[in-house]
């Protein structure tokens, strides 16, 4: 990054006079860009460093490059072959809706089937039902679904319209040099676009210039990768300086860039301006979806537009998901089709045989009469020979038996899911108070998947945590200060900066320890007080924070918002501010009676900070030349010094200001730059000019050693008011204890270590702070090496590291800090519940490893007894090796534990838990290679998997890793745009609505406010949904099968000619009206267990994971039951009415009523909870069926006229019904009684506990439950 920085400076320092390009500078900038892109590019794709370097240096081949003529879209894209910037997420247009929607719907195989049947039925030879009766159900289903789809798409259209209709100022191509607003959708590649502060970027653009003279632009990439901190992007000085000629079109500028790809961290291109070629990297491009911040404007040229932008390429369109249960259901549907075909074949073959046997009799038998004489010539009536007859009978049989595959099931399922969604949305336990958001069901067809989850992939930041680091406690010189008390809400005891009549206070309030506050306030220079001040000075100084002033509704009050890459540093700075040490400099002064805003812009690009003091009026204070960079140097520095003295007294409170300033001088070449800076610094800020006014101390930052992961610490060298030079170091405890001076303060180090252990055991993130006073010699020695290192052309990074290492030693310990990454409420408990429920929680985060691990501890994902397997590798070979090692380790542990299990009673708890920690760099080499298999093997053995530094698509890759190899259901939960791909990849995607944007929510299937809602969602609603839908599907199969079998048995007695005793209207209404409502009501309302029980015993969730409510065995049992019941329904009346005068209609009515009542009784028997709605629907359905049968038999034009009245008068009818109910239900009832008694499962036990456990409430259900579960091994699996 340091190198990248230098590049920018190189650009900045390029004289306006445009000197000839020096070759060394060019190569510097090229390699720097490459390094910069390597640093920001968490590598997707496995190119090596050298490759990348080469790629950026060598020309992109014209064939696979896109050539963009800046400001000339016509030449860039003469044939309009490139897509416009319009974004389209909607599926249908007005014209394509009907065909496309029908096509989509008929992708459900079942619908094709029903359509085919309806078409068949229209053929005169096959017309079994009336035309309307056969088409109506399908038409109804299609219509309902189409209306639903149309509504959803209309909403997408609207949001597209809004997005595409936004305006952006575009350079007038006519050459006037003016920017004119244009709608986003009309933007084209090659156009020059201006983006203003806080606006979204309309397409991927290469920066040409920004409002900042150095060419910096800050962007927030929250929508892209979920990181909320500002990132710097640079415009090349070549384009900055020539902006007027570029916009005027007088200079031909062209950009060769790679073809669109989805890598948001990489960009390879080169820029040719005036024949000069400069290479561009990821730091020169701003991407659609980002927002410009802290930069007044930025001008760029569009290189990728519309669907080719990286954000769109990354949001691979929403794939329609299908629930697992529905997939299984399709399997069973195929089985049913097989049964159906068997039945139809049986009927048609039997019919063929019958025809063959009775061939000679057909002519004269009255009931057949082959010939039709009425036409004069004798022709056959409806007879086409045996073969054709068999064929027709087969097709007719398909039509008659079609409801074997239940069409109503699809409607019922939609309705049930709708109802379930209603209850999930209305559940007050899923309502988030803080964001005022209800649960959202965005996908309506995977409710039941919530009950079968085995893997949860969770984002960390904003999902597990609130994304707010909070300073909790400090250990200063071995003394623990952790009695923090919350600041009073009105902020009266908060240190404020008083600026004129304004109060500035930190945006975030931190708990302060009163003892420590007293210590800091104490006037007398006690030793403890001095140490405490040093400690907080270190916290305030040793960081890379950008302060921002934020307004509040109260004009007198402003908030100081410390922004930075690291939330830990933010927390530390806030803490220092809470203890009275504000950092770094933010000053508002009053000059000449007018308010003058001084903004210290601190470039996050590490150790360079540019101060710019501006005035709206006549007085311009330029610390650094903005307008005239070459004239600044010392004179401006003096100006600053002079003016600051003017407003300095306005800052009256007791606080310290830490300056971290380094001056730029534009007269210098790159190599001489730092040296000059340093001397200027000494000259201006040197201990001569500034004196210490009471309460305000000034510290000069003389140097800063940035953080790197080898040293795991950062340090800053500060010139203090007392003329000493001190080195402050903060870092991870592991790295700090090595560089502490052990000879002194040993007891303090010990005490600090104890405190650290205490902090980390409660899940706090710890940092150790040390200090060393540099002697004059030390300082000078450091200064010279530092200058040399920082001006070195090659290997600067390692040189600087060496300098840092050499100076960071013999430190005196100051103390340690404990920061809480504030977990969301209830996260550890939620994770514990999920784990008990047999769900594996994986955390995938973009954070660095240490952060990820400490969060892992604080949310109880990782525990201290776990064995960690860490994989950090840079190459494929080392990945392979570490994976193999990991497998060896894990298998050792597994064998140990299995042995332990054998020797000990086998309770399963003897297993050593394993945790796998792997980073994104390793994953680059593993994902999508053959190493995946190994990773899968090891990951599934581990109890916990933590992936850090992973890119969005890698998250999806990890989900895919599991999804591809197992049948287990995956769930991804996240809140940022970087989680979108993961959310879409997983079987169930959940978006956390709230802090970071809406992308995750838009891509998700369900959205909710808090991570902890996952527990009620999965354990309660998921369980219920699964159980309900599973039962409903089985029941629907059963219900229709009974009916079909009854018809089939009858067909055997009609010479196999598909006569139905049951009227066609009853056939159609059977599954739609007679028995549909109860299934829907039960599917929505029935609960096997109460919410309380399900939450109390998460193990019960295993029911869904093991697919206990719906599987092939249950299906077969249900089908056998269906056959038995159909036999009873058919043959009891058959036997009872044999050799009587009974007519077809009467017997048909008996069968209808018998089967309707029987299936409803069957359902009633399986209902877990009877409330009034259940009662109403079940008994109501039977009543409706009776009424319909009566109504149908009251139609004089139907053959069955009045039959029901006649048959209902006979005792035989009622005895048959009664007998059918009893005989039909006995097997099921017996099986049920036996199963509930002998084949105990968790659910059954819990149900009984729920019902009877209440009796001994006084003795405590807890106790009885635990003894229960011990005595019944079935309960705990």
């Amino acid at each position, binding site marked *: 990054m340091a190198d990248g920085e230098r590049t920018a400076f190189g650009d900045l320092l390029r004289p306006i006079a445009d000197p000839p390009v020096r070759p060394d500078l060019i190569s510097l900038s090229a390699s720097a860009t490459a390094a910069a892109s390597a640093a920001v590019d968490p590598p997707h794709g496995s190119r090596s460093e050298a490759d990348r370097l080469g790629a950026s240096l060598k020309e992109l081949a014209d064939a696979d490059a896109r050539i963009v003529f800046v400001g000339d879209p016509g030449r860039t894209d003469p044939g309009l072959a490139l897509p416009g910037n319009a974004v389209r997420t909607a599926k249908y247009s007005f014209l394509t809706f009907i065909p496309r929607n029908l096509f989509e719907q008929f992708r459900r195989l079942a619908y094709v089937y029903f359509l085919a049947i309806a078409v068949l039925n229209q053929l005169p030879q096959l017309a079994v039902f009336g035309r309307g009766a056969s088409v109506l159900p399908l038409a109804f289903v299609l219509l309902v679904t189409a209306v639903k789809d149309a509504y959803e798409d209309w909403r997408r259209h609207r949001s597209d319209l809004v997005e595409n209709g936004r305006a952006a100022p575009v350079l007038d191509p006519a050459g006037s040099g003016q920017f004119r607003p244009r709608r986003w959708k009309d933007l084209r590649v090659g156009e020059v676009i201006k983006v203003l502060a806080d606006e979204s970027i309309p397409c991927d653009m290469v920066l040409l210039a920004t409002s900042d003279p150095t060419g910096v632009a800050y962007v927030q990439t929250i929508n892209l990768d979920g990181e909320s901190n500002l990132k710097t992007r640079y415009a090349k000085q070549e384009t900055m300086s020539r902006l007027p000629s570029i916009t005027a079109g007088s200079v031909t500028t062209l950009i060769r860039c790679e073809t669109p790809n989805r890598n948001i961290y990489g960009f390879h291109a080169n820029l040719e301006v005036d024949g000069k070629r400069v290479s561009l990297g990821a730091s020169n491009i701003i991407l659609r979806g980002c927002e410009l911040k802290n930069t007044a404007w930025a001008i760029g040229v569009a290189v990728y537009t519309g669907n080719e932008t990286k954000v769109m390429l990354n949001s691979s369109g929403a794939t329609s998901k299908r629930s697992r249960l529905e997939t299984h259901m399709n399997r069973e549907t195929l089985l049913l089709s097989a049964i159906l075909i068997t039945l139809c074949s049986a009927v048609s073959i039997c019919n063929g045989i019958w025809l063959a046997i009775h061939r000679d009799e057909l002519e004269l038998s009255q009931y057949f009469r082959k010939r039709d004489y009425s036409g004069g010539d004798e022709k056959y009536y409806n007879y086409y020979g045996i073969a054709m007859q068999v064929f027709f009978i087969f097709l007719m049989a398909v039509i008659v038996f079609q409801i074997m595959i239940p069409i109503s099931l699809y409607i019922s399922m939609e309705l049930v899911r709708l109802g379930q969604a209603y209850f999930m949305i209305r559940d007050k336990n899923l309502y988030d108070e803080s964001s005022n958001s209800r649960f959202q069901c965005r996908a309506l067809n995977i409710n039941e998947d919530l009950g079968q989850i085995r893997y949860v992939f969770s984002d960390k930041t904003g999902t597990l945590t609130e994304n707010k680091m909070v300073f909790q406690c400090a250990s200063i010189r071995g003394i623990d200060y952790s009695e923090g008390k919350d600041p009073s809400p009105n902020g009266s005891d908060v240190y404020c900066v008083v600026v004129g009549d304004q109060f500035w206070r930190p945006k975030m309030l931190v708990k302060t320890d009163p003892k420590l506050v007293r210590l800091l306030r104490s006037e007398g220079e006690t030793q403890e007080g001095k140490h405490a001040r040093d400690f907080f000075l270190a916290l305030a100084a040793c960081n890379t924070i950008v302060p921002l002033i934020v307004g*509040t509704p109260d004009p007198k009050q402003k908030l100081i918002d410390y922004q930075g890459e690291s939330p830990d540093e933010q927390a530390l700075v806030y803490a220092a501010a809470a203890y009275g040490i504000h950092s770094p400099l933010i000053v508002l002064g009053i000059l000449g009676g007018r308010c003058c805003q001084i903004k210290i812009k601190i470039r996050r690009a590490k150790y360079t900070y540019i101060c710019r003091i501006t005035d709206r009026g006549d007085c311009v204070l330029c610390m650094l030349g903005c307008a005239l960079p070459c004239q600044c140097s010392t004179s401006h520095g003096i100006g600053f010094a002079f003016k600051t003295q003017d407003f300095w007294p306005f800052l009256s409170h007791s606080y310290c200001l830490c300056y971290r300033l380094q001056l730029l001088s534009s007269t210098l070449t790159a190599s001489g730059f730092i040296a000059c800076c340093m001397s200027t610094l000494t000259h201006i800020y040197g201990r001569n000019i500034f004196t210490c006014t009471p309460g305000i101390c000034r510290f000069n930052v003389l140097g800063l050693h940035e953080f790197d992961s080898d040293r795991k610490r950062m340090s800053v060298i500060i010139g203090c008011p007392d003329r000493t030079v001190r080195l402050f170091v903060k870092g991870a405890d592991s790295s700090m204890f090595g560089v502490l001076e052990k000879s002194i303060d040993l007891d303090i180090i010990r005490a600090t270590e104890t405190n650290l252990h205490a902090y980390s055991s409660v899940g706090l993130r710890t940092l150790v702070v040390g200090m060393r006073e540099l002697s004059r010699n030390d300082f000078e020695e450091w200064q010279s090496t530092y200058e040399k290192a920082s001006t070195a052309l090659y290997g600067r990074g390692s040189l600087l590291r060496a300098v840092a290492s050499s100076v960071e030693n013999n430190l005196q310990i100051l103390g340690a800090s404990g920061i809480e990454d504030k977990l969301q409420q209830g996260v550890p408990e939620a994770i514990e519940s999920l784990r008990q429920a047999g769900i594996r929680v994986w955390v995938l985060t973009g954070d660095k490893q240490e952060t990820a691990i400490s969060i892992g501890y604080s949310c109880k994902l990782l525990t201290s007894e776990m064995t960690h397997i860490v994989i950090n590798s840079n190459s494929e070979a080392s990945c392979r090796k570490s994976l193999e090692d990991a497998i060896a380790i894990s298998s050792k542990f597994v064998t140990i534990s299995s042995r332990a299990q054998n020797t000990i009673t086998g309770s399963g708890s003897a297993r050593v838990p394993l945790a796998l920690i792997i980073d994104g760099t390793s994953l680059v080499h593993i994902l999508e290679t053959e190493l995946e298999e190994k990773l899968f093997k090891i990951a599934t053995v581990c109890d916990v998997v933590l992936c850090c530094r992973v890119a969005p698509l890698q998250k999806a890759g990890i989900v895919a890793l599991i999804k591809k190899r197992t049948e287990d259901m995956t769930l991804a939960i996240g809140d940022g745009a970087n989680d979108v791909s993961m959310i879409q990849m997983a079987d169930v995607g959940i978006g956390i609505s709230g802090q970071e944007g809406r992308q995750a929510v838009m891509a998700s299937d369900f959205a909710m406010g808090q991570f902890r809602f996952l527990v009620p969602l999965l354990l309660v609603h998921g369980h219920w949904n699964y159980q309900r839908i599973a039962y409903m599907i089985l029941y629907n199969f059963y219900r229709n099968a009974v009916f079909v079998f009854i018809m089939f048995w009858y067909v055997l007695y009609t010479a196999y000619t598909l006569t139905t005793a049951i009227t066609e209207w009853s056939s159609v209404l059977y599954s739609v009206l007679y028995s549909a409502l109860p299934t829907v009501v039960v599917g929505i309302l029935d609960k096997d267990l109460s919410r309380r029980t399900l939450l109390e015993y998460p193990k019960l969730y295993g029911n869904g994971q093991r697919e206990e409510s719906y599987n092939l065995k249950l299906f077969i049992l249900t089908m056998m039951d269906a056959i038995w019941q159909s036999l009873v329904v058919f043959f009891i009346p058959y036997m009872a009415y044999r050799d009587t005068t009974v007519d077809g209609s009467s017997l048909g009515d008996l069968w209808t009523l018998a089967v309707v009542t029987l299936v409803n009784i069957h359902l009633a028997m399986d209902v877990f909870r009877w409330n009034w709605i259940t009662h109403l629907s079940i008994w109501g359905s039977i009543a409706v069926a009776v009424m319909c049968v009566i109504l149908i038999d009251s139609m004089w034009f139907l053959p069955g006229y009045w039959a029901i009245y006649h048959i209902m008068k006979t005792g035989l009818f009622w005895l048959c019904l009664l007998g059918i109910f009893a005989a039909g239900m006995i097997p099921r009832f017996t099986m049920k009684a036996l199963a509930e008694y002998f084949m105990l499962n968790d659910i059954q036990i819990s149900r009984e506990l729920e019902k009877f456990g209440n009796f001994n409430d006084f003795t405590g259900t807890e106790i009885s439950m635990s003894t229960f579960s011990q005595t019944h091994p079935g309960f705990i699996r």
Partner: protein
Amino acid sequence: MNNVNGSVVGSSSGSGDGSAPRRNSKRPKYSRFTQQELPACKPILTPKWVISVFTLIGVVFVPIGIASLMASNDVVEIVDRYDNVCVPPNMTNDKVAYIQNNATDKTCIRTLEVPKHMSQPIYVYYQLDNFYQNHRRYVKSRNDAQLRKRSQANETSGCDPEKRTIDGAPIVPCGLIAWSLFNDTYIFAIGNKNLTVNKKGISWKSDRDHKFGKDVFPKNFQSGPLIGGAKLNATKPLSEQEDLIVWMRTAALPTFRKLYGRIEQDLNAGDVISVTLKNNYNTYSFSGKKKLVLSTSSWLGGKNDFLGIAYLAVGGLCFFLAVAFTIVYLVKPR
């Protein structure tokens, strides 16, 4: 430079909405319904329940079974198959030719002995075996509109193949069902005394009143080249042609009985009834059987032991299960 200032002001005022007025809360309103906490009863199959349910079914079913068996036992039924015996011995090889020959006399005399006292009314049925009145092409071949209204005589749709005569005139009643009307007749006598058979009211009143029109008369009936069965008296409206009405109520099963009439006097055990029948109906072409049945009736209908046995079986099974479960619960309690 102005831009810079602008941006500073813009950014500092842009993001300070911390205390914007609270929006309306979307907190779901509490109700027992939405929280799925409606009062409900949770039945669980406890041993007590299981045993009592089985016992209850047993207690109800066994008596019903016994009663049904007794009722079936009380029914006296005389069945006489006559289709074979009524063919003259010289024609047994070609029964179809015999039956199709209009010239031969089809009269046949059968004697039946009353085994037990039969109290009136004694129902006279004819029973056809293997006659698929539920055959698809047969069942569909009728038009109810035509039967009901005189004005709709032309309405013969669905009546194939017996729709119209060769010259295109509509047949009333049309269709295979009417065409194949049964046409055997029976005359009963004990000794020399004729038994009157009441043929009034053998059909459903609902059919007579609403399904078969009082002003609809048979037209062009049985005028085709193939005669299916009985001819109808063209002067009597359909609503009075009770044999047709009975016949048109198609049977559910291929073996069925149709009511021929009622004998409204008691018959004593040992009475010998002589039946003079006209064996007109052709069942020989499809090896169907014809039977004459005289039967009394009970509250449960005709003679059929099945239901009684079934009830006894189910009741017995339930008792057995009740006992079995009791033993299981006692021997192997949880």
